[in-house]
């Protein structure tokens, strides 16, 4: 989706603020949200792709107005309801209405897969990222769409986020680090000695 999370190339967010000696978690609840999300996903509440998509589906104002772990909290609350683990009323109350434990499918978060077919593209090959705008989850950033680049690395295969996030199957594909020049992405004014390598799934790419 063309969501607020896809910020590559945007202006207006101001300076990068580095906090010296930053703690891992700023508040106790942040650590508990991190652990809750990790453990619930490990139990099969949702795939990592569905979890990311839940964050992306926050309204843009909520996304930008929330701290990082507040986004995680909102995403888990949403997935608990969408996954049928609890009702909205139970989430609001923080109490289970029934004592029956829920059954979750279990499973691992790991998404690396073996595929028999060889990679479609080779190192050094020229490719073009497709100019597509799927309304669901995708890991093809907007700034790379329609742009031409060169295959820099051929990675292994992973489950395909665009379908896996929606329960439409794993459909694993090879992934490639595609090297785009800054000028291809941002125009002739851009840095002539800079490149951006974007990790793209095979079906995001065409020969070009």
């Amino acid at each position, binding site marked *: 989706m063309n969501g607020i999370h896809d910020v590559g190339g945007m202006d207006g*967010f101001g300076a990068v603020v580095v906090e010296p000696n930053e703690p891992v978690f700023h508040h106790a609840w942040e650590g508990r949200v991190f652990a809750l999300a990790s453990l619930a996903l490990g139990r099969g509440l949702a795939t990592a792709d569905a979890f990311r998509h839940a964050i992306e589906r926050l309204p843009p104002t909520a996304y930008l107005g929330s701290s990082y772990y507040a986004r995680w909290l909102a995403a888990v609350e949403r997935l608990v309801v969408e996954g049928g683990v609890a009702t909205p009323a139970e989430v*609001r109350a923080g109490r289970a209405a029934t004592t029956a434990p829920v059954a979750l499918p279990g499973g691992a978060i790991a998404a690396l897969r073996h595929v028999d077919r060889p990679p479609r593209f080779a190192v050094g090959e020229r490719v073009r990222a497709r100019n597509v705008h799927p309304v669901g989850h995708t890991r093809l950033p907007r700034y790379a769409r329609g742009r031409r680049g060169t295959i820099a690395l051929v990675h292994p295969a992973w489950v395909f986020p665009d379908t896996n996030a929606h329960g439409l199957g794993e459909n694993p594909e090879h992934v490639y680090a595609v090297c785009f020049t800054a000028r291809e992405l941002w125009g002739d004014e851009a840095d002539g000695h800079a490149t951006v390598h974007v990790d793209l799934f095979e079906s995001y790419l065409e020969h070009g």
Partner: protein
Amino acid sequence: MADHAHDDDTPEALRTEALETLLREKGVVDAATIDAVIRVYEEDVGPLNGAKVVARAWIDPAYRARLLADGTRAIAELGFAGPQGEHMVVVENTPTVHNVVVCTLCSCYPWPVLGLPPSWYKDPAYRSRVVRAPRALLAEMGLALDETVDIRVWDSSAEVRYLVLPERPTGTEHLGEGELAALVTRDTMIGVAKVKASS
């Protein structure tokens, strides 16, 4: 720890407590495991792991070659593996090539070697600009690179996790592996800083 949030009544703390209570009653999580996960990321997993990898690569050319050829396997030699480290790729900085890592879409980061990412790495300010104007952004963050240095930005938009192997500073020839590791900071392994000869 049922009373963990009683000193914090912000909406997020209260919602977290409600969600945790609900998921415990549903049998999805238990408090002891939650405590254990937090402890791992607060105490065990962090950039000290990555610093050990870097120091080993600096003193052992064969290890460096293995690290650049198969990051995941070479990192596992030192005992580091786990979530967000299924497939790690190490990219090497040189006097003419500077690598820097980002995740423009969320916050992907190599947890087994760097721990959980700092806030600035997750903020839109960094994610939006490092792909667009990396040289200017790095300069603002204190790293001035000559305009002839090739900057390679790595957007971890899939499941590969990148670690930067920074340059070993001159004047460190006499230092041992442990002393070298102590010089290597988190930011040098993301690629927004260079390692300095004295920490």
